[in-house]
């Protein structure tokens, strides 16, 4: 396989219009090799549309995209040879057993030998924990079992890219946990591109995140960068303990007089104070901020660090900003 090109997915101004609705508006996306890429957005944001375009199930109205360097419109079959896909609401032939479904799927990728295909099928059955149900017709499967089968069929061809559309959406907490576990185990073998609206899952397993809203991408960054609030205000959290009010007032004056300090807010808590210092110069803050407080030995710093956001805050902030435009 071609590992020289580190980009697995690349889209340029990809768009899709259904009659008068613009489902996707000029999407520019890059997914790097061996990443777990979380594609985040509210329902109807265009996540499934993007995935279906990448797989050739629907045609884009404009723009271009490549997967493994193959054009999605002209070389779709070559792309699908290297991809495993789990749909949002996966459907299979109800009268077939899980083993038959997996065997059928495997034969789109391999023609033999039979015993090796059977062994691979057995391996993925074990991987998703369907050993006891493998020879039963899937019409009797629960939602969780169907999802496991979905992951198994997406994995049967050792895909270089695994595309999962809302893999945990219809599952109970235990099922979700299992699915995320499988994703983490597969991380070292394959690139995973998955869509979801469950922020907790993204924060747990993704290394890169793109946020889509109303067909437009509003953020794409490594998860650490996104959670650090890069691009937004730089905020430091400080927890202080002081014997005198004067010491606190002096420290407050020392800090607010710095040209790189934008804002200081103080919240008194039980026996200590929480300070939030908003700064414009990260380097100056790292060099001087703590020192400016500790000049006074009567002040005790219990906690000091740059504020990190949780994904929900970042997501809601970005979506609200986008919606208010």
């Amino acid at each position: 396989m071609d590992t020289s090109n580190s980009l697995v997915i690349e889209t340029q101004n990809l768009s899709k219009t259904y009659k008068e609705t613009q489902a996707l508006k000029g999407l520019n996306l890059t997914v790097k090799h061996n990443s777990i890429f979380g594609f985040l957005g509210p329902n109807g944001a265009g996540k499934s549309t993007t995935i279906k375009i990448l797989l050739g199930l629907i045609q884009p109205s404009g723009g271009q995209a490549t997967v493994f360097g193959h054009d999605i419109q002209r070389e779709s079959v070559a792309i699908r040879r290297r991809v495993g896909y789990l749909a949002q609401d996966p459907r299979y032939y109800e009268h077939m057993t899980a083993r038959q479904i997996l065997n059928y799927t495997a034969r789109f990728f391999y023609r033999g030998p039979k015993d090796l295909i059977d062994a691979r099928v057995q391996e993925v059955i074990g991987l998703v924990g369907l050993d006891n149900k493998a020879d039963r017709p899937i019409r009797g499967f629960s939602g969780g079992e169907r999802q496991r089968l979905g992951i198994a069929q997406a994995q049967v061809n050792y895909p270089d890219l695994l595309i999962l559309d809302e893999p945990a959406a219809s599952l109970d907490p235990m099922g979700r946990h299992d699915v995320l576990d499988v994703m983490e185990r597969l991380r070292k073998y394959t690139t995973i591109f998955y869509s979801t609206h469950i922020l907790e899952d993204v924060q747990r397993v993704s290394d890169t995140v793109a946020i889509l809203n109303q067909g437009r991408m509003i953020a794409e960054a490594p998860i650490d960068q996104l959670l650090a609030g890069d691009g937004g205000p730089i905020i430091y959290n400080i927890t202080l303990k002081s014997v005198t009010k004067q010491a606190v007032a002096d420290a407050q004056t020392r800090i607010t007089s710095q040209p790189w300090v934008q804002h200081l807010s103080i919240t008194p808590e039980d026996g200590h104070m929480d300070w939030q210092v908003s700064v414009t110069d990260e380097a100056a803050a790292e060099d001087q901020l703590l020192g400016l407080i500790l000049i006074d030995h009567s002040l005790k710093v219990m906690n000091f660090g740059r504020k990190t956001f949780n994904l929900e805050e970042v997501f809601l902030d970005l979506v609200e900003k986008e919606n208010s435009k």
Partner: protein
Amino acid sequence: MTVQTETQVSQDLRTITRQGLLPASGGGWLAGYGNMLAKELGEWFNTRRWLWQLLLWPIILDGWIAFPLFVLPYLESTNPTFQGATEKMFAGLPTELGSIYMFYSMVVLAGTLGAIIFAQDEVIQEKQSGTAAWILSKPVARPAFILTKLQSNVIGMLVFVVGLPGLIALGEIYLATHQLVPLVPFLVGMAVILLGLVFYTSLVIMLGVLCESRSKVLGIGFGIFFAGMMLKTFFPQIAYVLPIAMDGIGLSILLGMPLPVMLLSELISVAVLTVVFIVVALWRFQRKEM
């Protein structure tokens, strides 16, 4: 010294794991064809469906000619009121040819209804249930999806509706008359009848691609068949285009008669329209959004 990155190591591991597995053959518009055809044929031959087909079609088609071949002669010999009934029924044709014509007519009637029913669900159900989208997310060319549906139905009908009942019919005729039906003209006649069935199969598969409602597919399929049957009395010219006299063409071949222009035109038109239906189905399905 060569230093391997973690990525390279995992790629190597995968290559080792894949060793021995042979990549599927068939690319381009045939990608996935063999696997899909095996699955579609399995629906005919690896499920209980084959047993039902094996019972149903001989009962309908061979049972239909068993009456004039075995029952009517018995009635003629035991009851004077039935005297000459067999000759009347076969319109003066020798018994073996008359019964073949009856057989052809029944294959056209029942076989066409069967062809429409078999094919009506093939595409539309897969579109509606989402299994088509699942299959097409694998390395499968869209033409292969349509062509395997068509081919499996044609093979199924060739075996169960045309082949086996045809063989049984030949046996019945030999048992009743001790006459051998000329085999080559009989088989050519059967091929003509099969062409009529392929016409309806491809029509219904095309409708399945174009329509989103099963009732529309069935309605148009049955509508064309029954309208053709009813209208041929008032507008015989319809036989220039639609397969409404395929049994007549089969009989002409069996009798060694040259085909009248109308029937020749019907034969050509049915073949051309069948190709048109398949091309339209392939073209439209290629652009279908899943």
